[in-house]
């Protein structure tokens, strides 16, 4: 497999083979490929690993030229030179080199590490290289890592150098004794001419120099670091840029020896700040303008509100006054300062229990309220008011606008008008009732004259008949029998009684109207009076049959004539209004404890329900064509009612149209 080594002739072939085999195994175990070149024969041995590494096939023979051909073009010269140098018999023959190869098979670039040893033969001038043996290791990975590291270092260096941070140092006279590359580059200074020529003070902006020097000197004295901002001129462009300069004073044995510090380019930041500042200023100006306009607008609104005679107040949701117009302040007699921010109930305590306050609370809850007429007990005036909740963009109520228009004048005149109207209505009513009364009165007079004239007609008729009969007795045909004379006189007597009753009714009416009615009270039995009265009625009226029932006996203390009159009124009415019936029932009974009642029941025409209470009114006569044909002037029941009430009794009527009526009066029972 390998060519026999002939350099150690003293070694046995087997021992050498063993040794070589160990080396081979050892190198195989590493990643190293091995080679052995016999210069004399030109024979080149390459291990399998090496062949793989260099892209050669395992079995073909490789010449030295072929081996050299894969060295990367860039490295070829250097490698060849190094190899040639190592062949110099004067040298050690050892070679260590790293270079690139382009692999034979796929031209892939690989970094390799070569370590070789040249063996020489002969001594002195005759010494010449005969054999080169060595290892080649694939270092591509390590090389790549190194390269990456180098790149990163280079980047770091570049960054450090490019970083806008100057590092500097001065002596006690503030003369620069050190400045880093960045600084030098900024000032466009070559490192070589020496720093002593760099007067940084020339590079500071003239407006900043005094300030900077003052600060530095001051901090040197007080042993403190400083930090300041200043402008430094760029050596290339002549442009000033802002720097943040920080320095710490140095001392040696308490003696100031200079500053060490850094300067950071903050120009862009500063510019950005300035720009921002300008923008802020601009914006502020805009805002100011906006505010000015707003204020103008607010002033305008306020002027409008103030010029309004209506009361306009804006409350927050806690009932505090946010805004109030002049009219409202004037009404309150307060200044804006006394009111704004205060709760309404603190400003006007008497508001608390008013509807106005309730309305405000309701409006705060979201209700829009409109009172056409609202009377304020606080101001004692009438208003038309609106309470409108004000909502923000999120629909939340933040305030309530209250507007009130004083309507007192209008309302008052409306009220006055209403009063006047009512007054007028009353006058009209009065006039109407007067007319009604006049009509009633006229009817009364008509009926009264009719009522009075009817018995007079009778009387006059009988009297003329009697007179005629007496004066013309000579005419035999014209005679009146004594019986007729008697009956005529009886009739006259009845009619005179009737007339008397009518006249006393008229008198009673007049007494009631003038309030001069007097009662002559005495104790008597109501039952006995009923009997007497019915007898009287029957004497003048034979048409009806009267039944009398004594369910209760009692004495009363009353005006006997007047109570008798009431009974006659009841009975004559019963007779008068029941022409188709002949039955009348009279009952005396106990209507309540200590009360006796006299009632007259007829089976006549009856009274309409809606007229039953009116029949006790003065001059009232039942309506209806038929009713109007009955005699009477509409004062009987009125007078009867007056009498009964004056005695502490009651008048009652029960009636059904077409079936009859029951009239009842009551009187207190008299106890001895």
């Amino acid at each position, binding site marked *: 497999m390998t060519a026999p080594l002939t350099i150690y002739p003293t070694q046995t072939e087997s021992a050498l083979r063993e040794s070589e085999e160990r080396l081979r195994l050892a190198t195989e175990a590493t990643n190293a490929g091995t080679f052995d070149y016999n210069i004399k024969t030109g024979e080149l041995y390459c291990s399998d690993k090496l062949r793989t590494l260099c892209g050669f096939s395992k079995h073909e023979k490789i010449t030295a030229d072929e081996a050299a051909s894969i060295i990367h073009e860039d490295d070829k010269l250097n490698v060849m030179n190094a190899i040639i140098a190592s062949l110099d018999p004067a040298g050690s023959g050892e070679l260590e080199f790293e270079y690139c190869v382009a692999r034979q098979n796929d031209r892939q670039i690989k970094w390799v590490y070569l370590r070789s040893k040249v063996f020489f033969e002969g001594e002195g001038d005759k010494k010449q290289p005969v054999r080169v043996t060595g290892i080649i290791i694939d270092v591509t990975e390590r090389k790549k890592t190194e390269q990456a590291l180098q790149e990163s270092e280079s980047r770091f260096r570049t960054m450090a150098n490019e970083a806008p941070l100057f590092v500097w140092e001065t002596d006690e006279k503030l003369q620069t004794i050190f400045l880093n590359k960045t600084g030098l580059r900024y000032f466009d200074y070559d490192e070589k001419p020496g720093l002593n020529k760099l007067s940084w003070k020339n590079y500071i902006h003239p407006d900043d120099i005094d300030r900077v020097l003052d600060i530095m000197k001051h901090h040197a004295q007080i042993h403190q670091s400083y930090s300041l901002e200043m402008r430094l001129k760029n050596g290339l462009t002549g442009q000033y840029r802002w720097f943040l300069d920080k320095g710490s004073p140095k001392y040696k044995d308490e003696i100031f020896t200079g500053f060490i510090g850094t300067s950071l380019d903050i120009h862009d930041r500063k510019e950005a700040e300035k720009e921002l500042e300008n923008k802020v200023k601009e914006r502020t100006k805009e805002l100011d303008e906006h505010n000015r306009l707003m204020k103008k607008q607010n002033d305008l609104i306020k002027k409008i509100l103030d010029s309004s005679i209506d009361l306009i107040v804006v409350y927050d949701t806690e009932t505090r006054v946010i805004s109030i117009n002049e009219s409202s302040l004037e009404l309150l007699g307060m200044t804006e300062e006394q009111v704004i921010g205060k709760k309404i109930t603190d400003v006007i305590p008497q508001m608390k229990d008013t509807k106005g306050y309730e309305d405000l609370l309701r409006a705060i809850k979201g209700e829009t309220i409109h009172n056409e007429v609202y009377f304020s007990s606080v101001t004692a005036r009438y208003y038309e008011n609106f309470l409108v909740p004000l909502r923000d963009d999120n629909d939340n109520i933040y305030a309530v606008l209250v507007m009130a228009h004083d309507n007192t004048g209008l309302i008052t005149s409306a009220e006055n008008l209403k009063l006047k109207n009512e007054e007028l209505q009353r006058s009209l009513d009065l006039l109407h009732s007067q007319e009604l009364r006049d009509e009633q009165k006229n009817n009364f007079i*008509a*009926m009264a*004259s*009719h*009522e*009075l*004239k*009817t*018995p*007079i*007609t*009778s*009387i*006059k*008729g*009988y009297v*003329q*008949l009697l007179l*005629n*009969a007496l004066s013309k007795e000579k005419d035999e*045909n*014209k005679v*009146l029998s004594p019986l*007729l004379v008697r*009956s*005529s006189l009886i*009739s006259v007597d*009845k*009619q005179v009684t009737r007339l008397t009753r009518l006249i006393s009714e008229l008198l009673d009416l007049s007494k009631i109207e003038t309030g001069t009615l007097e009662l002559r009270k005495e104790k008597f039995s109501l039952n006995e009076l009923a009997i007497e009265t019915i007898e009287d009625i029957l004497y003048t009226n034979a*048409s009806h049959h009267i039944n009398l029932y004594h369910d209760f006996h009692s004495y009363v203390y009353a005006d006997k004539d007047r109570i008798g009159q009431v009974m006659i009124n009841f009975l004559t009415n019963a007779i*008068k209004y029941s*022409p*188709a019936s002949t039955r009348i029932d009279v009952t005396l009974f106990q209507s309540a404890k200590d009360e006796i009642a006299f009632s007259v029941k007829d089976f006549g*025409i009856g009274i309409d329900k809606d007229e039953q209470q009116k029949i006790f009114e003065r001059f009232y006569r039942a309506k209806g*064509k*038929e009713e*109007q*044909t*009955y*005699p009477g002037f509409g004062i009987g029941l009125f007078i009867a009612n007056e009498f009964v009430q004056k005695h502490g009794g009651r008048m009652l009527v029960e009636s059904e149209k077409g079936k009859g009526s029951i009239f009842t009066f009551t009187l207190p029972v008299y106890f001895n």
Partner: protein
Amino acid sequence: MKKEALILVLDDDPDICTMITMMLKYNGYAAADANNEEDAIKILHAKHIDLVIMDMLLSGVNGTDVCRRLKQDKKTSSIPVLMFSAHPNAKGACLAAGADDFIAKPFEMNDIMAKIHFFVNEKQVKQR
């Protein structure tokens, strides 16, 4: 004499009826009396009546209506009607209802007898 004439007196007040009846009889007339319309109609249908003397207010019926009915009924329309009343506005209403004459209450006996005499004689003249 022509005193055979029969006169009907209609008044709701029986006293008045009696009084007038007495007057009529005293003056040589025959008389019948009624206190309501129903009774009056019965008499009118049963007997030959020469004259009706009646009141205007008849307790439930208005005399003017009765008069109107008498004047519309063929059987009675030719009978003269003399109405009387104490009511001040009665005369117009009675004449409008067809009454042949009117006399106010209270009246003089001579006056009412003159009117009765006139109607009875006129009728007899007509009949002749």
